[in-house]
């Protein structure tokens, strides 16, 4: 759920732009570096961006039976790293706003922070942390995708709560209210996205090993090569 166009007061729009800007600029620098070193990586980065854009159009079955679309920030963070995702998510969110009427230009700063920064970083930390603890890759993937998804919606709830304090219960009440609407419906979807991620990764390690190795997602490990 992106924050719709015009939904945030002016001061909040500006503030979220300011908060997101350093992350996006940092990501853009990394992207420019890569593009200079390897000109061909422009096309691969673009492929990654298009993949992220199209991911949100895939129908995902939820545990509750209703269907929704994956949020994709966790998978993107694991595959392409959070700084690059900060940049790619910004482009994707601009496209979603202007091509799909999903999100908005005034709320872009806020949406970039929740979907392009908070979600990917938290997902990435889950992935790295799980790997450090020596947990199975599937656990890391599941946690990364599920928590990236959940944290995106948590952040969105906080953003809306800050903008519209409840006349009775204040900011805290308002945040709780938005969480009630978004997060509770989102928990089953986060679990579904985590499961989807595990399945996708299993397929990709089968058919796209060279691509994953190139991205540095998996190491060309001897033991696995032998096991296969």
């Amino acid at each position, binding site marked *: 759920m992106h924050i719709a166009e015009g939904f945030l007061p002016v001061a909040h729009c500006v503030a979220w732009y300011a908060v997101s800007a350093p992350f996006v600029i940092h990501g853009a620098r990394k992207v420019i570096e890569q593009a200079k070193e390897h000109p061909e990586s422009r096309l691969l980065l673009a492929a990654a961006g298009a993949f992220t854009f199209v991911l949100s159009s895939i129908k995902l079955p939820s545990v509750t039976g209703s269907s929704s679309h994956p949020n994709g920030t966790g998978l993107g963070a694991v595959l392409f790293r959070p700084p690059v995702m900060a940049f790619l998510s910004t482009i994707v969110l601009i*496209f979603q706003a202007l091509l799909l009427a999903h999100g908005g*230009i005034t709320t872009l700063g806020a949406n970039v922070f929740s979907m392009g920064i908070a979600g990917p970083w938290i997902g990435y930390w889950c992935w790295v942390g799980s790997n450090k603890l020596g947990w199975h890759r599937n656990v890391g993937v599941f946690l990364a995708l599920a928590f990236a998804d959940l944290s995106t919606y948590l952040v969105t709830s906080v953003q809306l709560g800050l903008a519209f304090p409840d*006349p009775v219960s204040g900011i805290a009440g308002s945040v709780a209210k938005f969480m009630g609407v978004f997060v509770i419906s989102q928990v089953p979807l986060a679990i579904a996205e985590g499961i989807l991620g595990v399945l996708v990764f299993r397929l990709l390690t089968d058919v796209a090993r060279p691509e994953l190795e190139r991205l540095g997602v998996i190491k060309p490990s001897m033991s696995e090569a032998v096991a296969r």
Partner: protein
Amino acid sequence: MAHGLALDHAAWSSPWRSRSVRDKGVLSLGLLVAAISLPAWPGGAAVAVAGLVLLLGPIRVGWARLGRIIWLPVVSILIGVATVAVSVSWDGGLRLQLTSEGIDTAGRLAVRALAATLAMFTLACSTPMIDLLSALRHARVPDALIEIAALIYRFSFGLLESAGAIHSAQEARLGYATRSAAMRSASMGVAALFLRSWDRARRLEAGLVGRGYEDALRTLEPPRQRSAGFVAASAALLVAIAAGAVAWQVLT
């Protein structure tokens, strides 16, 4: 085909496509700023009316298409507005209540969000994405970033088509008949799309090298017409809306 690309099609077929992004930017961003900074009544409402008139008039979006593209934002605005309208508190148990303040905020929010959405549509329905990216290039955004964004735009359409084709092929073989089948199908679809986007990039790279690609994807831009009259008229409209809103405030 994907649902939302009606906006893209509207932009490419709009009579305003040949206008420069500078001109349209002044109008649309001006309306957008007015929508979120003026009081909802009458400023926001005036922006909404102006946006609607522009969209159905010179931008020629048409009622049917406008209905198709505005449906999604309206639903998302309604969910948010309803959440704002209802107040919650904890008083030994969860208490839901409607306060006049909450309803008032929600009402203003609804008008403002709708006005802003229509203002954004005046840009999105008259200006292809690629023209906006070219404008960013003129605004000194580094070339590499613009090139990547332009390629994402180009790749997205083919990939959306593939996603649709894969989904419909899976559905035909009952891939979404049960929940576990659906999960399996969706994961296969995502993996296939990942591979396809990768493959697409590799093949395009080979093709572009043959056309002299070394380190930049430079292209010329088709001519766009700038009009001082258009900018002046836009400014006049914005000033009229702002002045009207302020006058109303003072008078009441």
